[in-house]
C-alpha cells in the first residue's frame, strides 16, 4: 500500500509542475500566473447491518491556473498534466482573460510579502496511508455493531463509514513563490436508527450520529465508543415533540455552536465587506457580541484539522483575532479583498482548483469560558438545548436568522424531554450580544470549534397556545 504514501518526492513533482505551468503561461502572454496543483487519494468503506455496503478507492490529480493580464483575469482547470495539454491550457486561458474587463485591484501580491519559509505543521500521518480497505471495513463494522448491541431499541442503521483522504498541495506564482505540503485525515461516523412508537397512530423513525476524525490515526476515538455514543444520541430523541411558541433561553451544544461561529465568519470577512453583503460592514473595532465572545482563526496549530503553512495567495499564514471580547477585529482578508478595502491581507486566502482566491478560515475557534457545561445548564431554569439545526435561514445582509431546531427541553437546569419541529429566530446581532454564558468544554475536533454557550433569549416557534 506504500504506493499511496504522499512523499516529499510527490510534493516536489507537483511543485515542479506548478512552476512549469507558471512559465508556460508567461510565455503564452500572461503578465502574471498562479498555479495550484492537487494530488489526492480517497478511501471510503461503509458497512450497513454488519455487511459491507460500499468500498470506494481512487486517486486523482488536478491543476488550476489563474492568469492576470493588464488587470484582466481568467481561471481554468484540467486533470491533464501532459506538457502539450498545459501549453494549450495556457494559451486558452490568456485568450479568455482578454475578454474580461480590467480591474485595477486584480494584481498579484507584492513579492516581498510572499512566504519564504514553509513551516512543518505535522499535518500528515503515514499510518493513515497504510490503512487497507479490509481494516477500514472492520473498524466501521465494530462501530456499528457497538451501536446496535448497546440497546435493543436500535432496530436499524444508516450504516457506519470509515474514510480517509490523503493529499498533496503545491502552489507556484510568477512573483516567485513555490511551495507545497501534504496532509492526511481519517474519520469514522456511525448512524444508528430506531423506531419511535410514542404515538402508535403515527410511528416515526429517529436517527442520530456520532463521529471521530483526526489527521492522525492514533488520535481517533475507539470505534466502539463512537458507536455507543451514536446510539445514546439516537435513543435520546425518542418521543420528540413540539413545545409551545415562546421566547426563552437557547443553549447551543458544541456540535451546533460551531456552526454559529462559522456564521460569524460568513459576515466578518473582506469579501462580504467590500461587497457590502454583511450586516457588520463599518463595525470593526466596535462591540458586535457579548464580552464573553472571543473568536480566533489560527492556521498554525500543529496537527490542526484546518491548519495551513501558507495561504492561497502564497502569503505566510498567521493567527488572527476575529472577535476579541466582543469587539470585531479587522476582518479576514485575502490580497484582493484587502486591496478593495484599502488594507493588507491577513494571510487568510483560500483557493480552489477552478476559482479565484477569497478569504477562508483555517482553525476558527471560539475560546472556552469558565463555567462547566453542568453549571451552565444548572443556571438555566427553562429553555431549549439545541443539538441540531436545519435549513438555510440566515440573511447575511440583514442578519435575520430563522432555522429549524431539534434538541431537549431544559427544566430547572436539567435536560428533560426531546424536542423537534420547532424553529428558533432572532436577528444575528441580538444573538451574539445575548450570549451570557460560555462553558469550558472546548475540544478542537473540527476546523471550526466552539464550546457550549447560552443565548439569553430567542423566539422559539412551535405549537400555538
Amino acid at each position, binding site marked *: 500500500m506504500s504506493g499511496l504514501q504522499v512523499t516529499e518526492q510527490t510534493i516536489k513533482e507537483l511543485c515542479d509542475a506548478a512552476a512549469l505551468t507558471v512559465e508556460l503561461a508567461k510565455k503564452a502572454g500572461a503578465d502574471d500566473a498562479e498555479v495550484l496543483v492537487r494530488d489526492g487519494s480517497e478511501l471510503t468503506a461503509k458497512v*450497513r447491518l454488519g*455487511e*459491507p*455496503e*460500499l*468500498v*470506494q*478507492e*481512487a486517486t*486523482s490529480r488536478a491543476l488550476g491556473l489563474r492568469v492576470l493580464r493588464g488587470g484582466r*483575469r*481568467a*481561471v*481554468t482547470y484540467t*486533470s*491533464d498534466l501532459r506538457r502539450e495539454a498545459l501549453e494549450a491550457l495556457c494559451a486558452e486561458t490568456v485568450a*479568455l*482573460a482578454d*475578454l*474580461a*474587463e480590467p*480591474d485595477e485591484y486584480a494584481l498579484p501580491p507584492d513579492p516581498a510579502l510572499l512566504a519564504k519559509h514553509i513551516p512543518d505543521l505535522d499535518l500528515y500521518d503515514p499510518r493513515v496511508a497504510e490503512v487497507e*480497505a479490509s481494516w477500514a471495513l472492520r473498524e466501521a463494522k465494530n462501530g456499528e455493531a457497538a451501536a446496535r448491541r448497546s440497546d435493543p431499541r436500535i432496530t*436499524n442503521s*444508516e450504516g457506519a463509514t470509515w474514510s480517509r483522504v490523503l493529499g498533496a498541495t503545491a502552489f507556484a506564482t510568477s512573483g516567485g513563490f513555490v511551495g507545497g505540503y501534504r496532509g492526511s485525515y481519517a474519520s469514522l461516523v456511525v448512524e444508528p436508527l430506531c423506531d*419511535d412508537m410514542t404515538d402508535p397512530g*403515527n410511528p*416515526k*423513525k*429517529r*436517527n442520530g450520529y456520532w463521529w471521530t476524525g483526526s489527521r492522525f490515526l492514533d488520535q481517533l476515538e475507539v470505534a466502539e465508543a463512537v458507536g455507543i455514543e451514536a446510539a445514546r444520541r439516537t435513543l435520546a430523541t425518542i418521543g*420528540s415533540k*413540539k413545545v409551545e*411558541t415562546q*421566547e426563552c433561553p437557547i443553549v447551543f451544544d458544541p456540535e451546533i455552536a460551531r456552526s454559529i461561529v462559522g456564521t460569524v465568519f460568513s459576515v466578518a470577512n473582506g469579501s462580504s465587506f467590500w*461587497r*457590502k*453583503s454583511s450586516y457588520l460592514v463599518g463595525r470593526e473595532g466596535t462591540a458586535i457580541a457579548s464580552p464573553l465572545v472571543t473568536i480566533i482563526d489560527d492556521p498554525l496549530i500543529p496537527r490542526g484539522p484546518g491548519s495551513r503553512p501558507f495561504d492561497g495567495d502564497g502569503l505566510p499564514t498567521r493567527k488572527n483575532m476575529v472577535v476579541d471580547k466582543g469587539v470585531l477585529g479587522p476582518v479576514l482578508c485575502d490580497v484582493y479583498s484587502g486591496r478593495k478595502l484599502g488594507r493588507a491581507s491577513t494571510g487568510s486566502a483560500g483557493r480552489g482548483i*477552478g476559482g479565484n482566491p477569497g478569504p477562508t478560515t483555517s482553525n476558527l475557534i471560539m475560546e472556552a469560558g469558565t463555567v462547566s457545561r453542568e453549571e451552565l445548564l444548572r443556571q438555566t431554569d427553562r429553555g431549549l438545548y439545541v443539538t441540531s439545526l*436545519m*435549513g438555510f*435561514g*440566515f*440573511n447575511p*445582509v*440583514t442578519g435575520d436568522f*430563522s*432555522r*429549524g431546531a431539534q434538541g431537549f427541553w431544559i427544566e430547572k437546569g436539567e435536560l428533560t424531554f426531546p424536542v423537534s*419541529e*420547532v*424553529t428558533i*429566530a*432572532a436577528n444575528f446581532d441580538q444573538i451574539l450580544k445575548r450570549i451570557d454564558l460560555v462553558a469550558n468544554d472546548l475540544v478542537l475536533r473540527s476546523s471550526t470549534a466552539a464550546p457550549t454557550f447560552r443565548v439569553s433569549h430567542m*423566539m*422559539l*416557534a*412551535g*405549537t*400555538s397556545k
Partner: protein
Amino acid sequence: MTTTTLPPTLRAPFSAGGASAIDAQLANRLLSLALDAGGDYADLYFEFRVSADYVLEEEQVRTLGRGITLGLGVRVTKGDATGYAYTEDLAWEKMAHAARTAGQIAAGGGAKPFNVDLQSVPTPQFYAVPQPSLVVPAVDKLALLRAADKAARAFDPRIVKVQVSFAESIKEVLLFTSDGRMATDIQPIMRFGVSAVAEDNGKRQSGSGGGGGRYGMEYFKQAERDAAAHGKEAARVAIAMLDAVDAPAGEMTVVLAPGDSGILLHEAVGHGLEADFNRKQTSNYSGQIGKKVASDLCTVVDDGTIEGSRGAINVDDEGYAGQNNVLIENGVLVGYMHDRLSAKHFGIKPTGNGRRESFRSMPLPRMTNTSLLAGPHGPDEIIKSVKRGVYAKRFSGGQVNISNGDFVFSLSESYLIEDGKLTSPLKGVNLIGNGPDVLRRVDMLGSDYQLSDGIWTCGKDGQSVPVNVGTPTVRISSITVGGTQV
C-alpha cells in the same frame, strides 16, 4: 441533442473517432476484469464535461472560467455491496487498475468467463438544443450579463450592488453494463443568476432572480426569460424587501405561490420516496405503498421527460431512459423512485432515477423534475380564503430529515395575508413541518400549475445533481412559521 452541432473540442475523447475511443470490445475487456473477482454486476461510466462561467460585478466582467473534466467510474456489485473506483486517465493500465480495484468488493467469489453482447439502449430526446451556448462566442454571453446588470440598476436608484453570473456546461456520457446495455447521451445545461442589494436609509436588503435548464441561447428569446427580466426581478425583490417587517411565530395557514414552492414538495415528500431509503427501511414512507399519505387533492409526479427542464434526463446514469413516474395519486402512495439496486430489491423495473454527480460517485435514486399537479381552486380564491397567514413567494432552499420526516424551507420573499389580501412583506423566515403531516393539510390546490425556471441543485450524500420542481398555488391549513413576533 444531435452531435453534429458540436465542434470536435466539445466532443469526448472516448466517443467514436475520438483520441481514446472506447468500443464494445474494449468495454468487454474492462467489464471482464471488473467481474474477475466474482462480482455479479459491473458498469463503466465514461464522462467528459466542458464547463464555462462568467461573472459580472461592479458593472465589470470580472472573471471568466473554463474547465474540462474527463474520467471513468467503474462499479461492481455483489449482492447489496458496491465496489467503486475511478480514474482520470484513460490509459489502458489505469482503467484496468480501476476495474480490478472496484472488483475487490467480491474478492473470493470466483471468476467466470465473461463476454457480453453490448446493445445500444434506445435514447429518447428531451433536450434537442439547436445551438448549445458553449458554441456561441463568449462576447454574446457577456452582453447578457451587461443587459441584466443594466436592467437591475435601472429598476430603482436604491439598487447599490448587482452581481450577474452565467454558467454553462456540456456533459457527454458513455455507459456500458455487464447485463449488455450500452448508452450514450450529451447533456447541455446552463444557469443564469442575478443578485441585487438595495439600500435605503441605512437599511439593506437583497434579492435574486435567474433561471435556465437544458437549453441553448434560445432560452433568452422568451420575454419573461430574457436577461433584463432576470435583472429586474432581482431588483424588484430587493426593493420590496426594504419594507419587510418581522415575521410572525407559530402555527398558521400558509399559501405557497406556484412554481418555486415545489421546493417544499421536494423536501417534504420527494426525498422520503427515493427507494434507497425505503429499501433500507430508513424512511418514514417505508412500507406505506397503497396507503394514504397526503390529502385527496395531492397527485405528485417525478417526470424526467419535461422538455428542456433542468432535471430532464434522456437516459439516467445507469442506462435507463428518463420516465414520468407517479409517486402519489389522489393522496395515495403508489410508487418510489428507483435506481438499479432498489428496483432489483423491490422486483420492479427501474424508473430512470439512478443519477450521479460525476464519474467519481456511484449512482443513487434521485429526483428529476418533481411536481404537485394542478387542483380545482382559483389562486385568488385561495388567498381570499385566508384571514391571517403567510404567502410564500420565493425560497432560498430547504432540508429534510428522512427518518422522521421533519423538513424546513427558507423563505426569501413572503408576505403577510390579512383578511384575504397580501399586505406587508416579511423578513426572511423558515417554515418547519413534518412531511406526511403537512401533505395531509393541503386543503386547497390551485388550477395554476407552474414549472419553476430551472435554478435548483439537490444535494444528497455529498453528490449534487440539477433538478427542477413545480406546483400550483397551494394552501396548507397549518404549519409552523419561524418568525419572531407572537
